[in-house]
């Protein structure tokens, strides 16, 4: 392992708000760009590309992605960004728009270079303390947990909810989230995420090309894709399919190669389709190790069958952990490595 390199593992924050004006229905999407830019500046990243549809706005950032729904913000940043610094300004901006925070979910894997992380990301304990200090007090139902703590793929989860969120539509909400983290990517496949020196392309056009040649375009043919290739290497994309997003980020450098895939789906969707997506993603990168973390309404076991879908690709399930989080549902983290390891 390199002494130091780019930290691919993202930190992911999801903030849910209540009080959206149903007349306009645009809620947080009305946030002016200057304010948004200031928040991103505090986190230490910028917007490189963006697109919106009827349901939500998506931004490709210099370090990962941002999604803005009328009542929800999902922000995911890698490297040494200080993601949690966005919590307070986002909550404050939302208040000026008549929106109140009702739920917060923070997740991440295990950093490859934990020593390089700045405060408050110095440890999970520091992150939890920082969150507790910066979240409004009415989010009193909290839980922090390090799942799969014995595996190489620890999964860190923190959730906080208010009273209303606790009793709200936990059952009505049919969406699940899947977060896949992959390391030690196949070297030949990872090469596809490098640009040729002086290729004369823009980040947009080089990104579009990578989306095609790597097979990422085929993961969901219905999605509108907003992609970007960094110079000299690295790739990010956001997919928009109706009200659902997906996102891929790749750090291809040997020694600390990393790729992530995340998407949302409905528990009522065809499961076979979901397993097909998982397989396509694994085949794009052929990692030596990967973790699949699913968050879904309790009672729907979306994690079932994940191992059956992935094991035929030459990987073996090494550990599985499940836990319940108030107003969030069940989180299951499953870690796989190649059979040869």
């Amino acid at each position: 392992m390199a002494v130091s390199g780019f930290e691919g593992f993202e930190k992911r924050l999801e903030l849910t708000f209540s009080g959206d004006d149903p007349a306009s229905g645009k809620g947080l999407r009305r946030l002016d760009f200057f304010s948004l830019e200031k928040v991103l500046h505090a986190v230490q990243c910028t917007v490189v590309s963006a697109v919106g549809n009827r349901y939500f706005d998506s931004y490709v950032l210099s370090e990962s992605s941002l999604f803005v729904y009328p009542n929800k913000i999902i922000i995911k940043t890698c490297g040494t960004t200080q993601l949690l610094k966005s919590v307070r300004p986002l909550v404050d901006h939302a208040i000026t728009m008549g929106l109140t925070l009702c739920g917060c979910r923070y997740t991440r894997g295990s950093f490859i270079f934990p020593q390089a992380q700045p405060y408050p990301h110095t440890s999970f304990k520091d992150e939890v303390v920082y969150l507790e200090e910066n979240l409004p007090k009415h989010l009193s139902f909290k839980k922090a947990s390090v799942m799969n703590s014995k595996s190489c793929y620890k999964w860190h989860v923190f959730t906080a909810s208010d009273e209303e969120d606790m009793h709200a539509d936990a059952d009505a909400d049919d969406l699940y989230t899947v977060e896949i983290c992959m390391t030690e990517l196949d070297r030949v496949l990872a090469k596809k995420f490098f640009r040729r020196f002086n290729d004369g392309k823009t980040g947009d056009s080089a990104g579009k090309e990578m989306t095609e040649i790597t097979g990422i375009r085929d993961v969901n043919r219905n999605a509108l894709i907003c992609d970007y290739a960094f110079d000299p290497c690295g790739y990010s994309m956001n997919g928009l399919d109706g009200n659902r997003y997906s996102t891929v980020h790749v750090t291809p450098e040997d020694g600390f190669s990393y790729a992530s895939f995340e998407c949302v789906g409905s528990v009522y969707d065809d499961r076979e389709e979901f397993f097909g997506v998982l397989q396509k993603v694994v085949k794009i990168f052929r990692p030596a190790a990967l973790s699949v973390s699913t968050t879904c309404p309790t009672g729907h076991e979306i994690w079932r069958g994940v191992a059956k879908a992935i094991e035929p690709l030459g990987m073996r399930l090494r550990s599985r952990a499940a836990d319940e989080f108030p107003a969030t549902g069940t989180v299951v983290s499953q870690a796989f490595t190649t059979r040869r390891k």
Partner: protein
Amino acid sequence: MATSDSEGQVIGCHTVEAWSEQLQKGNDSKKLIVVDFTASWCGPCRFIAPFFAELAKKLPNVTFLKVDVDELKTVASDWAVEAMPTFIFLKEGKILDRVVGAKKEELQQTLAKHMGSVTA
């Protein structure tokens, strides 16, 4: 060549009549037209708007139009605009290109590509 007040600016088309008039004007002058299909509630549209205005200032030989997809719903659906912003490049009534999303580099490169054909 006659200059108009709107030169160097993004012209907002707020009615179907104004839109048709601008298209006609563009057809007559054989100028390259770039249309920004935007929405007031779309964050990425606000992100790219200043950049688009700057391009308009720099390139007086290109007509820059702006259409709000809520204001001119029929135009947006006729032109199959589903994501915002969408930039459509037109010349003499023909669609030359389409850039979907707030992509500064791609927007600039596409402009350069078609401006070459304008001066030729």
